[in-house]
């Protein structure tokens, strides 16, 4: 240790952005930390593409088989492949949002971050940027491979694809913030939700079959989920019937309401865990 080093500089230069409640440099710092973590971890890079490709291969062959068997599915057989890709984007986005805080928990880095000027809103923004980057890069690979292996072009969905992606991304963000709130509040006990909650919702989301295939009371649940309206619209497009614009509008409104509720829940959970003094307890 340099105990005999020359005198330390006593002047303290002002820090950039002093006192700002939201500072982009703090968001960038969290993003940089996680990008470096991924860069040094080949498993994390492989994982980015591994599960989406497994899903694509499985459903690609199922689709090919159904097409060759001349099976007539409502919404068209090819709708299955589009649904796989869009649901994968939704799940990946939510899962990645939660992995950001879980990696900080596993690395016991939470306390260092939380004892800095970083705010919860900045932390969520950083997680959102990382989740968007990872889910969209995975989706790009899927689109290319689906075209190459199964001659399926996701863009044949046309203009409906954009509002569909917006709703699915908003829904995934809401789900991620909601699960993130549970993980913040209950620690490692709640981490399983990052993998299981989206799977639990999938049967009600009408990803692979129309809402009408569900029993009556489950149809009510399905219609409360914005994603069911999106997949109904996509099936309509593939079946060359007009996409229900009202359904997409309802989906967008539901997604925005869910996002606002999940964001408020996440902030409440962070405040609650500070009231309980649990932040420095490893895994709680």
């Amino acid at each position, binding site marked *: *240790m*340099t*105990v005999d*080093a020359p*005198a*330390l*500089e*006593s002047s*303290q*230069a*002002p*820090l*950039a*952005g*002093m*006192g*700002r*409640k939201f*500072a982009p*440099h*703090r968001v*960038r*710092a*969290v993003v*940089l*930390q996680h990008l*470096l*973590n991924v860069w*040094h*971890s080949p498993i994390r890079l492989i994982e980015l593409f591994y599960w989406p490709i497994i899903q694509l291969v499985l459903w690609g062959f199922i689709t090919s088989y159904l097409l060759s068997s001349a099976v007539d599915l409502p919404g068209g057989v090819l709708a299955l492949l589009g649904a796989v890709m869009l649901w994968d984007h939704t799940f990946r986005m939510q899962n990645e949002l939660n992995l950001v805080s879980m*990696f*900080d928990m596993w*690395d*016991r*880095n939470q*306390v*260092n*971050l*939380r*004892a*800095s*000027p*970083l*705010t919860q809103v900045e932390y969520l923004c950083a997680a959102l940027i990382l989740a968007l980057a990872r889910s969209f890069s995975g989706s790009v690979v899927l689109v290319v491979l689906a075209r190459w292996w199964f001659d399926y072009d996701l863009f044949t969905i046309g203009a409906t694809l954009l509002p569909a992606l917006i709703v699915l991304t908003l829904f995934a963000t809401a789900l991620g913030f909601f699960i993130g709130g549970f993980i913040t509040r209950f620690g490692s006990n709640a981490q399983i939700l990052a993998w299981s909650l989206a799977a639990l919702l999938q049967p009600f989301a009408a990803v692979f079959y129309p809402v009408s295939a569900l029993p009556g009371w489950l149809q009510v649940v399905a219609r409360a989920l914005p994603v069911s309206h999106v997949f109904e619209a996509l099936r309509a497009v593939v079946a060359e019937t007009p996409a229900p614009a009202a359904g997409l509008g309802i989906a967008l409104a539901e997604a925005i309401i869910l996002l606002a509720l999940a964001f408020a829940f996440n902030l409440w959970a962070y*405040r609650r865990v*500070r*009231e*309980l*003094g649990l*932040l*420095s307890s*490893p895994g709680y």
Partner: protein
Amino acid sequence: MPGTAPRATPAIEVRDLVKRFRDVTAVNGISFSVPAGQVCALLGHNGAGKTTTLQILLGLTLPTSGTCRILGHDIVTDRVAALERTNFSASYTDFPARLSVREMLRVYAMLYAVPDAAAAVEEVIELFDLDALADRQYRTLSSGQATLAGLAKSVINRPRVLFLDEPTAMLDPEHAHDTRIVLRRLATEWGTTVLITSHNMREVERLADRVLFLSNGSLIADEDPEQLTGRYQAADLEEVFIRLAKEARA
């Protein structure tokens, strides 16, 4: 006010601080202030309320009542401003396992908006003699080396207030000695205020200007180490500690 000399804002100011966890009162109405540049030790037996007090001062835990101000900023209502010129190190935290020490310091320099971050990173690497370790991933460091990396992080923003929870607990005697010298220099040359918890009473005697002794959440002593030892007519601070801890349990 005419005729009244302006009073310097204390670096740390705690007033009537209370923290209850259900039926347990961890901190029971403590008040103290620490002026700029002072090295102050927060002592007490296990469960006395030291870590809870530190965590409230760092904004990690919210108080039940009372106020904490860092450099004049309330830690609850003005948390960002309070923590920008503050930093901390504790043995119970780690850093991302796969980042090198240099990368980790770069991330924290960015988080604290350090001007000329590259120079600041090299400065703290030199200060804690981390040159040989700077490009090694954090997960490959020994506990002592990881402690030094954590200490380097804790000064990356040249904090005006530094909180240290058992900073030398994992260090060998040589590194612990050198760390104490660096901490003293931070106080004298940077004017950093240091609030430190430690169970090493010899370390406290060598390092601290002042001792705050907590017992069962209450502040029962507040004076310099020599005065405290003299008041209890004890041979050293360790004897005082043992006596006060036994009294607390009685």
